[in-house]
């Protein structure tokens, strides 16, 4: 019997030890200093932003006697956030793109943010509009982004005025064997709605109409309407059966590298491509994406990166404090810009970095007339069918039937 008793005693000791390991590690820290009696702020961001946020988070923590943890979520940040928040294990603050808002709101994952008028006016107007949903401000924006035309100035010294000019210049380069592709605009076999959007708008197409208050109206779907068919008929002429400027073989994986290896003179991409172009030592210039001759202006999507307060965060008051009073500082916006160069949404920060970085001003110029990426939940229904229709049309499918079918599918998915 003795062995068994000894075993049981040992077991309990072990169990206690084990539970000690897995237990609440905050407690001893809380007793160390009365200043650190405060809570813990947990921030989720993607890899690149995490590194930039860390020093500021530490500073905020030190200033206020709280612990701030910045956690990198490298994949599917949005879905992970929604799931974690549902289970009560989510962060207090999350950093992400503004077009998540519709989904995050319908899942009750984020709270509106109250910014006083004078703080709001410090931001780029488009950025504020982007994070406004149902008349409420849902996040504090810190950077904007949009696509532009990046061209290799060695191969193409002049910025094309129209897409026809671009195609003509590209064809000439191809004939002279200086380049193998006319244009690097990523599509892939499943299309890419984001990158084709400037051409779509130039052709006259629209995704959603706007209601009286300026919000996108999910009831007025533009895909499948005559305007969208007309736009895709123009796009089809650039496709594989036409000029060959748009190709499904140019994918998200190879578009930038094809440009940096000088196989094409023109690339339609965002600020994230600039780092690669610099690394490859390409002399480049940035100009707005050109539209069709005689068509409308080519308007790219404008996306905004923002900080959100999680509804189910454990430390909401602190999260609000961080997001409304700390994120609105230009220093943080500049640091985040340095981590990944996208134009800051804070006017003061933008002006500060604009001088040192010409590209930034050019990107911002290219996005001046852009459309704010719709954040309504209905937008989720667009991406997949729209992109696939785009790919099919580039590959030579009939624009009218394809885009009508895509419109029907999208309509069916909008609840």
């Amino acid at each position, binding site marked *: *019997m*003795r*062995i068994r008793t000894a075993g049981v005693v040992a077991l*309990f000791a072990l169990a206690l*030890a*084990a*539970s000690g*390991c897995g*237990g609440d590690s905050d407690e001893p820290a809380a007793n160390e200093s009365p*200043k650190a*009696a*405060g809570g813990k702020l947990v921030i989720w961001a993607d890899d690149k932003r995490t590194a930039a946020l860390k020093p500021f988070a530490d500073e905020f923590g030190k*200033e206020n*006697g*709280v612990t701030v943890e910045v956690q990198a979520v490298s994949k599917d940040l949005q*879905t992970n956030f*929604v799931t974690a928040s*549902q289970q*009560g294990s989510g962060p207090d603050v999350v950093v992400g793109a503004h077009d998540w808002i519709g*989904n995050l*709101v*319908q*899942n*009750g994952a984020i709270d*509106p943010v*109250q910014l*006083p008028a004078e703080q709001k006016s410090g931001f780029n107007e488009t950025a504020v509009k982007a994070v406004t949903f149902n008349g*409420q401000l849902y996040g504090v924006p810190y950077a904007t982004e949009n696509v532009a035309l990046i061209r290799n100035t060695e191969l193409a010294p002049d910025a094309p005025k129209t897409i026809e000019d671009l195609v003509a210049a590209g064809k000439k380069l191809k004939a002279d064997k200086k380049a193998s592709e006319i244009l690097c605009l990523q599509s892939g*076999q*499943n299309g890419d709605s984001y990158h084709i959007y400037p051409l779509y708008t130039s052709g006259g197409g629209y995704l959603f109409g706007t209601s009286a208050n300026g919000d996108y109206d999910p009831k007025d779907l533009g895909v499948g309407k005559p305007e969208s068919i007309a736009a895709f008929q123009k796009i089809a002429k650039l496709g594989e059966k036409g000029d060959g400027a748009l*190709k*499904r*073989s140019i*994918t998200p994986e190879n578009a930038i590298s094809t440009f940096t290896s000088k196989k094409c003179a023109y690339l339609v991409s965002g600020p994230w491509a600039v780092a690669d172009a610099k690394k490859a030592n390409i002399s480049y210039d940035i100009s707005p994406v050109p539209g069709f001759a005689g068509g409308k202006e080519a308007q790219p999507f404008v996306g905004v990166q923002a900080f959100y307060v999680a*509804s189910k965060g454990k*430390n*909401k*008051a*602190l999260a*609000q*404090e961080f*997001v*409304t*009073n700390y994120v609105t500082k230009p220093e943080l916006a500049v640091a985040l810009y340095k981590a990944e160069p996208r134009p800051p949404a804070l006017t003061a920060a933008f002006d500060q970095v604009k001088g040192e970085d010409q590209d930034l001003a050019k990107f911002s110029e290219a996005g001046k007339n852009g459309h704010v990426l719709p954040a309504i939940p209905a937008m*989720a*229904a667009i991406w*997949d069918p729209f992109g*696939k229709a785009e*790919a*099919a*049309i580039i*590959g030579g*499918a*009939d624009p009218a*039937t394809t885009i*009508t079918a*895509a419109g029907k*599918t999208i309509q069916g*998915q909008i*609840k």
Partner: protein
Amino acid sequence: MSAPLSGPGSTRTPGREPVRPGLSRTARHHAPITATGLVGKVILLGLVAGIAIWAAFPLIEAEHWIGLGILAATTAGLYYLYLSRRHIPAKYLVPGTLFLIAFQVVPVLYTASTAFTNFGDGHRGSKDDAIVAIQTASVKQVPGSTEYALTVATDGDPATGALVFLLTDPKTKEVFAGDADGLRKLDAADVTVSSLSGKITAADGYTVLNIGQASGRSDAVTALIVPTDDGAIRSNGLTRAYEGKAARAYDEACDCVRDSETGRTWTADEESGSFVAADGERLAQGWKVDVGLKNFSTVLTDPNISGPFFGTLAWNFAFAIASTGLTFLLGMAIALALHSPRMKGTNFYRVLLILPYAMPSFAMLLIWRDMFNTDFGLLNNLFGLNVDWFGGTWSARIAVVLVQLWLGYPYMFLVATGALQAIPRELTEATSVDGASPWQSFRAVTLPLLLVALSPLLIASFAFNFNNVNAILFTTEGGPFAPDNPTNGATDLLITYTYRLAFGAQGAEFGLAATVSIFIFAIVATVSAISFRRTRKQEEVYS
């Protein structure tokens, strides 16, 4: 303690165990108690206790008493089982059974129960969650109201005292104290106001909390609402407060949400799990409800789903059979070639053949995807082709099967090699003595014996390929898609189609995806059951 230590209990040796009259009723195979065994037992049971305690805290916090009960019962059961000397077979069976329940039965049951709900984006939580979200989302600042500088203070002890908001009006410099009873003006002489931030830094009768202390009581700060005539003063962070008003409120009497600004009402619809207005407009925040067999009828009758479903099913079978069959044929052919005694340098070939097997398949799949690129891909460039591999229905299907063949044949080669070694050479030699050709001896002797050994593996491989998400998602992503049907591609398997349904760009629809999973489960289970039955018959013939 020394006396009992020398007692019979402690000196009991393994050798004496069977002679004990009470326990000797059978020839029970008692393993002797060894020191290692005891230590192992202590560590494992300690782990059990550790895991139980670690899992108990969140359950208690969530007030999940049923879960806690199951946890306690399981732990107690495990302790009873491994501390007692009885129930020998159970000691072996229970761990496996527990893992089976935890990782197989529970997920299947969970999937099955999800299939009867509308779980998905916009319908994730409970009705209460939705109501809270709707109300919080409608809080707006009262137009023209004051933005106060806020200091969080308590009535006494910082950690336990009742919270009070000390507020300064930045324009008039008036100071107030607010709590759940309302707002009252403070005498400017009783407080110290920082000239820098305009915040109250000290006040008679109150303990001012620093941000760290205040954030430690975050929930209480967020919950404290100071009622005013126009709305209520709420904290905005820890240094500012605003006067806000919730435009939408839930009314239990009518089970509806009312908007005080526009006068609209949205009535709860328990069937769809959302608040719906008279004109059919829905509020975005819904909740999870049981929808009965709706998802099943959707899968079977919705032309957008059922049409593709059967088309995809056919291709799915073709893909699984082709992947399994071709890899088996190629693997076996190579194994046979290397099995031949006349073959030289077999070890070198074997190493070479196993190489593809040693690479992580997902990386290989991405590389293959790029190799099939029309303009930049290795395949077209190498052979001077201009095939739009992933653009055509059949070329894409051939491409994915080719990739599967390359990834899968080394495995089949390995198992076939193993099985071949187990077939005595005398058997084939005997057939050649009898005058059979190599082909005849292969057909009559080798192949049947191989199949007896490999059938279960082929069935497993079939089941795996039937649900091979990676093979499709990393290469064609289900494409190419017919121009008029963006939901279902030529190479889509049921599982990739389900994946897109559940996690696709159009938002998560877990309920529907779970329903499709159940269909897939039923199909795979049926196919496997039939195959195993046939295999058993075959074994009876040949053994």
